[in-house]
């Protein structure tokens, strides 16, 4: 594998020397969202494999080109999982792409996001330097937390070659319950439940129906289920998968799909078009033709931000702008890691 790393490093050094832009490519599974336009492609999928995994450590170290499906299968054999339940959006999704996009699935609501589970990364920066940050242990406060800075940076700061992640045991028992409710009732209820010691691990609301997943020990899940009532959904597992992967029919309306991340207690946002609510109210998917400015404003009024997720210009993705002071700092950070801006030109939208 070392020669693959050396080749990637060489390519970056050359790009840096001649000022050529590179598009970092994992499994291309998220190209519907971000797909920068660059002079050359730098493929990471050849740099793959598990570097270290000892289940009792709850830590796995993986090369970035490793397929997410392969990693999840290995963890599953050992009764463990990636807690943030990342979407794959296709069979070729790699771990590197997953972290670069920083996307998390339904369980994010209960346990935390991709960045929360990253313990360390190895990267090639915009000069081709091979850098390691963080580590393979659960607690580490030596040096600035560059590992988490990489998550969600969309490959704009460096090429992630390896990452160490904290994993968790899979819950022994999971069930899904549903209730017919209005959107505002569902938002109110899920927020109240989140303040109670209940093993809620995911929520969704669409089409007048609230669904809730409970995860944990058999005893804990059963006692919570009897407290909450609702109707049991037999195809629960499929539902959460279709939500995570956005294969559920709701996601395919033909309209642009916006992702609004807001204060979980925000009432229904009052936007026309259909809405799907996740994360106990904190994530609102909106399929609509609204102008971006209106979505940015709505999201901001509710303490958050909006991004165009499907149906836009993937080389120049859209999202809420940053306040000028933060934009200045973001640009300087980019400058530090990739001084000649060779990685993924045109993204992220906030630069």
């Amino acid at each position, binding site marked *: 594998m070392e020669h693959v790393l050396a080749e990637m490093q060489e390519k970056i050094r050359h790009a840096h020397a001649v000022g050529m832009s590179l598009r970092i490519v994992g499994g291309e599974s998220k190209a519907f969202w971000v797909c920068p336009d660059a002079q050359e492609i730098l493929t990471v999928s050849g740099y793959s494999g598990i570097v270290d995994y000892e289940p009792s450590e709850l830590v796995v170290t993986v090369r970035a080109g490793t397929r997410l499906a392969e990693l999840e299968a290995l963890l599953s054999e050992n009764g463990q999982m990636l807690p943030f339940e990342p979407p794959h959006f296709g069979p070729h999704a790699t771990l590197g792409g997953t972290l670069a996009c920083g996307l998390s699935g339904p369980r994010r609501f209960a346990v935390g996001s991709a960045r929360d589970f990253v313990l360390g990364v190895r990267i090639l920066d915009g000069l081709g330097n091979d850098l*390691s940050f963080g580590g393979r242990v659960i607690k580490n406060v030596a040096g600035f937390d560059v590992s988490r800075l990489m998550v969600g940076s969309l490959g704009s700061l460096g090429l992630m070659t390896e990452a160490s992640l904290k994993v968790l045991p899979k819950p022994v028992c999971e069930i899904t319950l549903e209730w017919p409710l209005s959107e505002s009732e569902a938002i109110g209820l899920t927020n109240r439940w989140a303040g109670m010691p209940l093993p809620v691990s995911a929520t969704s609301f669409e089409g007048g129906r609230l669904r809730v997943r409970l995860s944990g020990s058999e005893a804990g899940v059963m006692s919570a289920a009897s407290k909450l009532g609702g109707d049991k959904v037999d195809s629960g597992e499929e539902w959460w998968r279709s939500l995570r992967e956005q294969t559920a029919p709701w996601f395919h309306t033909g309209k642009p799909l916006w992702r609004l991340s807001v204060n979980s207690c925000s009432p229904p946002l009052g936007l026309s078009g259909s809405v799907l609510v996740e994360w106990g109210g*904190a994530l609102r998917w909106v399929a609509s033709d609204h102008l971006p400015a209106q979505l940015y404003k709505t999201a901001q009024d509710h303490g958050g931000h909006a991004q165009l997720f499907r149906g836009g210009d993937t080389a120049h993705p859209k999202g809420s702008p940053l306040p000028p002071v933060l934009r200045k700092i973001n640009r300087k*950070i980019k400058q530090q890691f990739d001084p000649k801006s060779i990685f993924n030109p045109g993204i992220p939208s906030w630069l």
Partner: protein
Amino acid sequence: MTGGSTPGSMEPLRLALSRYLPSQDILIQPEELRPFESDGLTAYRQVPGLVVLPETEQQVQAILRTCHEFNVPVVARGHGTGLSGGALPHGQGVLLSLARLNSILFLDPLARTARVQPGVRNLAISDAAAASGLYYAPDPSSQIACSIGGNVAENSGGVHCLKYGLTVHNVLRVRMVTLEGEILELGSEALDSPGYDLLALVTGSEGLLGVVTEVTVRLLPRPVTARAILAAFDDVEKAGAAVARIIAQGIIPAGLEMMDGPAIRAAEAFVKAGYPVTAEALLICESDGTPEEVESEMGRLRALLDDSGALETRLSVNEAERLKFWAGRKAAFPAVGRLAPDYYCIDGTIPRRSLGQVLKRIYALSHEYGQEVCNVFHAGDGNLHPLILFDASKPGELEQTEAFAARILELCVEVGGTITGEHGVGVEKIDQMCVQFGVNELHAFHGIKSVFDPSGLLNPGKAIPLLHRCAELGRMHVHHNHVPHPELPRF
């Protein structure tokens, strides 16, 4: 390390600051400055040039702008409980205390968040949230005293972090003032925000990037019940193996702490927690949740511990007994403090699989240096806290202790761990940073520092060593077998 500024040299700055602060909130007399000369790491002392005690964010902003203008170093201080000298003052600089920004601004029970000022004590947040059935999960042992601003600066952890995460996992938003006086709002009311994850970057940055003036934390519902189990072992390696087995079996206890023989005996002598004093290792393992969950987890834990060779396992039968089990652990530091005039606390983290082996090597080092060590630590996280006993009044003992501590930290790095799990680098572990990181990484850290603080006036000399310091120490770390800058001569 005493001295401080020459008389009168701080006068122009004091005058400038007095435009923004009442004169009683600017301390300049030696006897007023003395209480600020060290944080929890008292081996390092330095009287600051002056101390300011602002009460508002605007004052903090004005102080920082003024210091920038005067080109004077600034060290932020919360409640001074840090254990790595992070809040050690600068002799010609300003010590900026955040202690008076101590209000809980807003607590939202439905959204499960609290917006607080940086000087609010960690435990005060949980106390305020209790009426809503909520609490703030990260619980450093110093939680009655330490500030939330300090917690953010150190990314502090506690005994419940294995299950509930560190500070970085429980903070939603931070307001921060840069040295140039710009106000940054990082994070939001939502679960994610546009832009690079500067909130994560700033958490654990030891006061080098900006001064935190407001923190929004996430609150969790209080578990209905909690029970603890005590397990005694005749050997640290057996106890270490039991820890690994618990985790491998898919159990994430709410707390999983370990004490070794010397620590058990010190704690028992101090608080009479009922610990088995002949044991060589003790595990305290807590389970929380609904009564049903706790019941089933306790059963599994007991079986696993018995099966791992525990001499004895004891389950708490009521809340009073659970608290008693914890009393010894919580009082372990002061208990050890009774054994010798001084102790030196180390904070390395290692992979759990190396627990037994590393403890044995620490014992061997203890023998080599002729100094006693007690171990009480967050076993579930692999976060060690060896406490080396010494007497600072004996010439050379502090230096020898530091050398011993450095060996332990290097051992942690050797087995794949890190030099600090939660206490931070500060001034204390700055040389070990050269062992942990290579030149390129250190260079990147300096780059990040320069983005936020180009003049380098915020907490200088802490957390990130200068490259030439590492080179002089001859401790340059060879990383992935590549010598950085092979073209340069070594010395």
